């Protein structure tokens, strides 16, 4: 790692090629979820699983987060956690909007 300090991130090319292959595989799998028309919980969990695996590989290996010090890892990766709160609030609000629309506007159209 002292080496990395002076000359930047150096890793074997083979590592990048492997990750490239894995990303291709995961993309194919997520495309197949749609191709074979999985529905319901199965579809959503598979989509989320492949998405998170792909995002993790890109951030950890291609963007070199796996080799950075925790100070910057946490500074960058923790703040997006706030977004989960936003998503939760907006999902609840959207449900409320939908129920209001169904309650007040159905039958009048």
């Amino acid at each position, binding site marked *: 790692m002292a080496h990395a300090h002076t000359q*930047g991130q150096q890793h074997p090319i083979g590592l990048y090629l492997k990750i*490239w292959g894995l990303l291709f595989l995961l993309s194919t799998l997520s495309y197949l979820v749609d191709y074979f028309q999985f529905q319901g919980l199965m579809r959503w969990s598979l989509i989320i699983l492949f998405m998170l695996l792909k995002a993790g590989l890109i951030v950890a290996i291609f963007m070199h987060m796996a080799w950075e010090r925790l100070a910057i890892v946490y500074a960058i990766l923790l703040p997006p956690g706030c977004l989960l709160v936003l998503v939760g609030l907006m999902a609840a609000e959207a449900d409320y909007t939908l129920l209001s629309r169904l309650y007040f506007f159905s039958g009048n159209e």
Partner: protein
Amino acid sequence: MATESVTNPQPPGLRGLVSDWASDKDAFKQVSWGKAMMWIFLLSDTFIFSCFLTGYMTVRISTTADWPNPSEVFALTIAGQSIPLILIAIMTFVLISSSGTMAMAVNFGYRRRRLPAALLMLTTALLGATFVGMQAFEWTKLIEEGVRPWGNPMGAAQFGAAFFMITGFHGLHVSVGVIYLSIVAFKVLRGDYERRGNYQIIEITGLYWHFVDLVWVFIFAFFYLW
């Protein structure tokens, strides 16, 4: 990583986290300011894209009309057969390939082999331009089918607004990335960084490019597959 504590004066792990943040002058040891600032810019961009995707989620949940089925909307007829979502799948593979060539360009840069580094960066830019080209094709197709930001013939009116906003903003990022990559590749070829002896600019450019790919992973999952 075990050798880090021997060769590196900074403590590793959680102790390192505390000592880095409690230290004088800079919190991000071993990370140049250029790289730290690119990361912070990308963090802000994460929030922008997340707000778009959250807005999309909100209108999709709250609409009483049926959401158009992306699998059918983005299907292409090839050799007489309708294949669902095929253009988007190809776009995904093109963007992932561009990320692969970018990662290798960073590597060649640090090995001070500037010709392969620049050529790989230009390949990345070319793949990015291909992606934008296919996106333009997709937009044209949808506009011809009558999709507008305020309505469309397939279902919920909000579909068009979410689609044009999210993919448009992402396409803008890819286009800017193509220009950015081309400029840096040109400077690499000209030998600017050879004189300075520092090729980290390729890694910083790479961070931006990988982020564009990263955003596409989420758009692909939430907008096209969901």
